[in-house]
């Protein structure tokens, strides 16, 4: 089973040189720490920044410079600041190549639910609906099962959905899977020590297993 950090590490290997990337809150934020040094990529913060740098030093904390998770941040050489309209223009216009975000549920046709649980206080979708409706490549980082043991890879989402037919890849604590264009979760890699049978038993949606499934190389 992968730790959260290992999920982030595995996702980081999907990143390609020259990409503009939006990282959601939680595990996706950790991905930034594992992007290979030889890749030039740019991280977007949808509140109005391209080129997210590391967290600031104590002396450089600036209340006027935060990320979409409201954390204080820094910039890098070549960073640029802009309005929310420009920011979501970039996102909707397909200029941000890759979005990595968390999910409560993903369905076998790539629907994602990650913003609302009936009966609980609704906090809002923030920028998630724009992001999942727009990027050509969307990777979900999440646990394979919920805390009470239910599969989060479903035939159909049970929670209110955030977007349809959008998730392309999923990395969980158990596996790396691709969502097939015709529907179904194609198992690509197993987490070290996790069997295909365990993944199958914990995947409610259609799991496609073809040939030997290698272990992840982290």
């Amino acid at each position, binding site marked *: 089973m992968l730790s959260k950090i290992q999920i982030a590490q595995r996702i980081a290997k999907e990143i390609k040189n020259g990409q503009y990337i939006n990282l959601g809150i939680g595990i996706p934020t950790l991905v930034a720490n594992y992007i290979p040094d030889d890749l030039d990529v740019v991280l977007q913060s*949808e509140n109005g920044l391209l080129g997210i740098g590391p967290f600031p030093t104590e002396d450089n904390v600036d209340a006027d410079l935060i990320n979409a998770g409201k954390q204080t941040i820094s910039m890098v050489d070549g960073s640029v*600041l802009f309005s*929310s*309209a420009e920011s979501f223009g970039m996102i909707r216009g397909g200029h941000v190549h890759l979005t990595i975000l968390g999910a409560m549920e993903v369905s076998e046709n790539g629907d994602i639910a990650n913003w609302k649980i009936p009966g609980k206080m609704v*906090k809002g*979708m923030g920028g998630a609906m724009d992001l999942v*409706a727009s990027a050509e490549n969307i990777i979900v980082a999440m646990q394979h099962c919920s805390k009470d043991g239910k599969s989060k890879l479903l035939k159909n989402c049970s929670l209110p*959905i955030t977007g349809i037919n959008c998730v392309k890849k999923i990395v969980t604590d158990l596996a790396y899977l691709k969502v097939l264009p015709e529907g179904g979760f194609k198992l690509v890699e197993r987490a070290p020590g996790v069997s295909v049978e365990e993944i199958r038993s914990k995947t409610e949606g259609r799991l496609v297993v073809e040939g030997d499934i290698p272990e992840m190389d982290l």
Partner: protein
Amino acid sequence: MINKTVKDAEEATADIKSNAVLMLGGFGLCGIPENSIKALLKKDISGLTCISNNAGVDDFGIGLMLQKKMVKKMISSYVGENAEFERQLLSGELEVELIPQGTLAERTRAGGAGIPAFFTPAGVGTEVAEGKEMREFDGKLYILESWLKADFSLVKAWKGDTAGNLIYKGTARNFNPMMAAAGAITIAEVEELVPAGELDPNQIHTPGIYVQRIFQGKDYEKRIEKRTVRE
């Protein structure tokens, strides 16, 4: 050049009455019109509709207006940092309309730019699309969204001039430029107010044409929600 200067937040907000529709700039607590909010808190008004990406926190920003029960309806993309907000929402005192963040930004931009409606992919297939017109372009589905406008827009900038031209700083820009354009009356507060002619015409984020009143704010707290530093 037309001079938009007023004395302070009290003068700027004097004619904001109960049941007005307000836009308030800011993302979280970053770039919020602190002075104008404080001035509103001194007024005996209620029934406000507030369009703002977030709703502040319990003891700052729009959260203080919620405490005083001045707000009838919030139109936002994310409102999750606020216990009093939750109480009023669950009790039915407060109405909330949640909008995808990019759609909120674009609807506001449309309000200022005279575009009554546009198609966006955000929310297709979700409850956001319910009751909305849907149409396919180049094989992809989009929903029709309409413009947003306000009786008053309260925005915050870093520098401004007496002609109403504004420059924001860092990520405090966020929704402020679109809201400045979408308000029938736009009230801008700035950290530094200079005479027209001192700002570089090529480096202004909000042209003064959108701003009806401007004043130099004071005592900015600029609270940080999540102070995060390098280890």
